[in-house]
């Protein structure tokens, strides 16, 4: 039902959104490690005044087992204020929660009780397949004229992957987004420059290339994604591919400048075949053409073979494996998760061409197993990271993707969620009070913050 004034969590610009009150709840994807029990959407208490601060206060189980919850997002966000498609009198209320393996899409209502979301609708995989021709839904963003969901491939597990559209109001699958996909085949993440009518997409692999684990032959043969794609957002047309080089494998997370007048963003690359390093690339526009250049490179760290899983023994090194990045709403700090080494880094990217490392913390890691002040040695490593709207709190979890978790951490990842306090002028400190171990048999993935966070909203005004 339409409201009388705009949802108070909608902000015209990212700068204004930084004035938002501190979040008191987090929503978190919780997946069954064996896939035998239903996954759940968890609610974590983030209110430091609360007696259950840092604890899981609710879990909403999905109706089926084996979904593999991964990423999720809101039905509506600040893009509802965009001038050409305004619809500000809707509510940020529903969480759209896809199952990456099942292709089932769940709609949860957070309004009656934000601390106990309820499933109000389930879109079955057949409907996604039939209406969009896609499967394995991944990233989700609320756009000015619909909800966009990226999907890794076709129902048979092959390519191409792409983007499907969901209706804003009834959450019906409207169909495939692309009118002309050009040479694009692989899909993963996507990001918008709303001020420029541009969409950027990245590449992982088709479902068949990833669902039984990372395939070493495909990796060494440079078969995983190594390109960015630039799209005309209005005409839904592919306009340019940017090849980062065949040795740059697994181009995953994209974080565009939050200021819509700026035409640049950051892309994380998991691994370089040359030296096992990880990197962050800056895409930008100059003279009407889009280009990308490497702005951060993190080297692999030497390690004894007996410290390494079978997949890495031969290399005698642990790769950083940048699996997630995030950007604060003032476009100032970039956070980089190194899932292999356990390094979690904060860079000042005020000058996006020359990031400056400002601080880092270590937790887990294939070799180090670095502990938290409130824990013993940990495994897994910093992965899905979310930043509060004011930029002062950073939360992350430690699981990547079930089939890949088992290859890099064969002993079995014990899930956890932690929080860092970020200094507005640079600096990162683990909150010693905040250590949330996952329940036995479960693992955590993406976190979304109540009212929005640094990657949930796209803005139309600077």
């Amino acid at each position, binding site marked *: 039902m339409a409201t009388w004034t705009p949802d*108070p969590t909608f902000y*015209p610009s990212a700068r204004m959104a930084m004035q938002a009150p501190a979040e008191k709840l987090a929503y978190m994807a919780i997946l069954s490690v064996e896939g035998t029990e239903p996954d759940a959407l968890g609610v974590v208490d983030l209110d430091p005044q609360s007696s259950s601060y840092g604890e899981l206060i609710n879990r909403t189980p999905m109706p089926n087992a084996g979904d593999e919850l991964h990423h999720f997002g809101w039905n509506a966000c600040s893009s509802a204020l965009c001038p*050409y498609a305004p619809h500000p009198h809707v509510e940020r209320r529903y969480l759209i929660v896809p199952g990456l393996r099942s292709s089932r899409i769940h709609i949860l209502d957070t309004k009656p009780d934000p601390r106990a979301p309820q499933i109000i609708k389930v879109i079955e995989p057949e409907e996604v397949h039939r209406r969009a021709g896609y499967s394995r839904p991944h990233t989700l963003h609320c756009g000015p004229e619909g909800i966009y969901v990226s999907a890794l491939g076709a129902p048979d597990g092959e390519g191409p992957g792409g983007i499907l559209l969901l209706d804003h109001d009834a959450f019906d699958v409207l169909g495939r987004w692309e009118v002309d996909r050009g040479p694009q085949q692989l899909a993963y993440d996507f990001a918008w420059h709303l001020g420029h009518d541009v969409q950027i997409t990245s590449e992982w692999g088709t479902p068949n290339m990833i669902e039984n684990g990372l395939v070493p032959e495909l990796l060494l043969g440079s078969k995983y994604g190594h390109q960015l794609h630039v799209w005309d957002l209005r005409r839904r047309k592919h306009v340019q591919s940017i090849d980062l080089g065949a040795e740059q494998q697994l181009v995953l997370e994209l974080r565009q400048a939050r200021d819509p007048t700026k035409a640049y963003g950051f892309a994380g690359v998991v691994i370089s075949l040359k030296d096992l390093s990880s990197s962050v690339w800056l895409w930008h526009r100059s003279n009407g053409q889009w280009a990308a250049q490497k702005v951060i490179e993190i080297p692999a760290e030497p390690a004894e073979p007996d410290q390494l899983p079978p997949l890495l023994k031969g290399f005698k090194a642990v790769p950083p494996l940048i699996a997630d990045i995030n950007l604060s709403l003032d476009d100032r700090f970039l956070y980089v998760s190194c899932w292999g080494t356990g390094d979690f880094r904060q860079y000042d990217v005020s000058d996006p061409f020359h990031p400056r490392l400002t601080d880092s913390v270590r937790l887990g890691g294939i070799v180090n197993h670095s502990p938290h002040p409130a824990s013993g040695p940990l495994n897994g490593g910093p992965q899905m990271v979310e930043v509060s709207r004011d930029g002062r709190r950073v939360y992350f979890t430690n699981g990547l993707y079930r089939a890949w978790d088992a290859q890099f951490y064969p002993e079995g990842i014990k899930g956890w969620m932690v929080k860092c306090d970020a200094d507005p002028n640079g600096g990162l400190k683990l909150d010693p009070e905040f250590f949330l171990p996952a329940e036995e048999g479960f693992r955590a993935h993406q976190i979304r913050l109540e009212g929005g966070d640094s990657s949930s909203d796209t803005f139309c005004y600077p």
Partner: protein
Amino acid sequence: MNAVWPWVALAGLGAFHGLNPAMGWLFAVALGLQRESRAAVLQALLPIAAGHALSVAAVIVAISVLRVFFDITALEISAAVALIAFGLYRLVARHRGRAGMQVSGAQLLLWSFLMATAHGAGLMLIPVLLGMPIGDAHSEHSHHVAAFSSIGVGAALAALSIHTLAMLAAAGAVAIVVYEWAGLAFLRRSWINIDLIWVFALIGAGVILLVMALR
């Protein structure tokens, strides 16, 4: 004196549309902010006003033509039903503009035309054009009809102009104040649901028109 009221109503409706963020001033401000240019704000306002005028003109032409062929009471009843039906439709309609931020003048004009038409901006002019009485005397009613119908094309053009100029003036004033001084933060609280007001205005006008016609 009463002959002035239709013109005041036309101008007032124009100003009301001009103030609505969804009718274009916000788009003009956004384009100005994106291009960091006050000139871009002003340049956007003209095609936005022109698109709005085209949408309203379609209604004025339609009414002018229908007036030649149909009895005024039949027109009033039909218009009343149309207003109420459109109001109810707006209650459930889900319109999203389709555009982007890289738009030409022609695209802005088309966008504004579509937004005004989907909104039913011109429909509210129908009661005024049919000489909807402000008071309740039936003789005044006829008097207004005469005031409009006797001038014909001239009156139609004047009606369009006064509505559009009022719309442009209101939109332009808000756009400049917001772009230069006020900023957009106030939208978070002050962007009231004008669509909802509009639904009740359409239905209300339809009901009044119907009562008047049937009396």
